[in-house]
């Protein structure tokens, strides 16, 4: 049973909507800006991918401020019997900050199950939802699980909802690990120095082809394959050889029956750290050999949106397939030697646009890969 993406939307530091995100990426503009939300002076940088208009002083968490308008609009698109999957790393962790800083919120309010309940309430959803967390591969993993459930006939319809925000909690943590770039991130750049944190919210409604046809839904794309692996290396450092990610990609290819020659573009994890980007290029070369595949990262544009990154990148990758254009890797000026010939500095047209690979890697050695196919019909607002 095919898994189709029938509806989706996103909110990033560029603003709301897929069209805006896509056009902004093509323009090469970066949405990474100075953080005003908390004091960044003790930390390695003052830059992050901040969504304009969010107010950390409101009673609603940052995630709810991001999700509520989007999901209220999407409610008519998402059946009430859809399985809702929340994918996130920290969710409403700003509520936990308040519990410690202001003692005005119970810390339990920050639990992901509470956020899941709030999301289901907005959607008037009556399914028994699921929380999926896989570090920075959370939403990629959720899409893969959703596709598996649909393919096996266990579910007809899954709404993957994702959100992570820029908080002092996360910012300070990454700063302590010396993972943050002092200036906006430059994925795959020869002189890259680290990542920029970002925030985003997104949803994607995945549906079986049978139900999509029955409900006359137009399709944005298809999830054709996926793969999971663990590097078995270190809690924060990816393996140097890229074998773990390569294994995840090979699982995705094998499960889908797609030949590696048919993969026409890669939306990489591309955080901008020395180790991640080097690991990814090793993995890509291990799988695809000497045939460079147009590769890009959007994290130099909107920051590393943590658990939300995978779903945002899946949506962008589907748009890229549909347009037959690969966006530039914003922030990258001079590619690392390992990335030369692969990573795009400018928007590039594709001769073929059959399948796209989207990869995510996270703390603890987690790797998830998705194989995607576009279905003509557009990725504009639902």
């Amino acid at each position, binding site marked *: 049973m095919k898994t189709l993406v029938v509806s989706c939307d996103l909110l990033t530091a560029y603003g709301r909507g897929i069209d805006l995100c896509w056009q902004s990426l093509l323009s090469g503009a970066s949405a990474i800006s100075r953080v005003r939300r908390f*004091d960044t002076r*003790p930390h390695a940088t003052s830059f992050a991918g901040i969504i304009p208009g969010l107010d950390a002083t409101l009673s609603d968490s940052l995630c709810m401020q991001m999700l509520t308008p989007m999901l209220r609009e999407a409610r008519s698109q998402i059946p009430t019997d859809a399985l809702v999957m929340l994918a996130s*790393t*920290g969710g409403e*962790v700003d509520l*936990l*900050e308040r*519990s*410690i*800083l202001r003692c005005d919120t119970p*810390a*339990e309010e*920050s*639990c*992901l*199950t509470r956020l*899941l*309940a709030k999301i289901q309430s907005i959607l008037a959803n009556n399914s*028994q*939802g*699921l*929380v*999926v*967390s*896989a*570090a920075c591969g959370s939403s990629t*993993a959720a899409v893969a*699980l959703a596709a*598996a*459930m649909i393919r*096996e006939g266990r579910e007809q319809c899954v709404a993957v909802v994702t959100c992570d925000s820029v908080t*002092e*909690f996360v910012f*300070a*943590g*990454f*700063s*302590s*690990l010396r993972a943050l770039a002092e200036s906006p991130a430059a994925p795959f750049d020869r002189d890259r120095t680290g990542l920029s944190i970002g925030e985003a919210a997104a949803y994607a409604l995945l549906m079986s082809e049978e139900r999509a046809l029955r409900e006359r839904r137009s399709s944005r794309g298809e999830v054709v394959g996926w*793969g*999971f*692996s*663990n590097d*078995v*290396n*270190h*809690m*924060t450092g990816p393996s140097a050889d890229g074998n*773990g990610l390569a*294994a995840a990609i090979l*699982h995705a290819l094998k*499960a889908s029956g797609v030949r590696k020659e048919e993969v026409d573009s890669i939306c990489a994890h591309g955080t901008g750290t020395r180790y991640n980007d080097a690991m990814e290029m090793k993995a890509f070369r291990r799988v695809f050999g000497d045939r460079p595949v147009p590769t890009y990262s959007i994290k130099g544009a909107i920051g590393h949106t943590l658990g939300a990154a995978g779903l945002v990148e899946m949506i962008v990758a589907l748009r890229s397939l549909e347009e037959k254009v690969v966006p530039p890797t914003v922030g990258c000026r001079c590619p690392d030697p390992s990335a030369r010939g692969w990573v795009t500095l400018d928007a590039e047209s594709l001769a073929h646009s059959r399948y796209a690979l989207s990869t995510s890697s*996270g*703390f*603890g*050695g*987690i790797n998830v890969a998705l194989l995607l196919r576009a279905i003509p019909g557009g990725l504009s607002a639902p």
Partner: protein
Amino acid sequence: MIVVRGIGWIDAEEFGRARTRDRVRYCDCATFNNLWRCFRIFELPMNNFGRFDSSSQWTCYAAVLALQDAAIGHTRESTPQIGIVVTSCDGSLKSNLEYFADYVHSGRRLARGHLFIYTLPTSPAAEAAIHLRLHGPTLYLTDGQNTLSRVIAVAAGFVERGEADSMLVVRVEDAKALGILLARPAPTPPFCTLQKALQVTDQCAGITAILDRLDEAVSRGSDT
């Protein structure tokens, strides 16, 4: 066909392996904090185990006990493709609080990286994966009702689809952890079928009740 090949469990006083019916009362001569020094549970050293957060320690114990119950050794060599899914009702809440409170108490100038790395719900699964060489899928899953059967069903799916040779499911509660190893049948007799495990875990809420019901079902020979 997927079966439960092994079950390991641990609480504040005892640990055990369900299929081999081992049960060790460790509290008479050790505490949870020094258990790993007093009893040779880990076949190979777990580097820095004493610095893991408590959820990670509970997870690693339950995981290794389940692997042992399934007669799968912990070696440095390549192992079958085993994945791990961890579930709990509150994710990394305790570690989140510890990390951020320490950061605030220290003046909000420098966070501690070794506390930050445990502020992900997947960190316990990741520690187990790294130290037990579990190359398969690594996830945290929960639903709003903390239903173990749903997590087991998802984990079994990885094995059924050939994405893992076996999957560990570890449930962590307050001062308690349960590890279940799901796999295809092997020469060693399984503990029970997947269907029995799903049925019992769908009916029972806590680890103690789950173990009692599984043990009862297996003793009656009602479904193995």
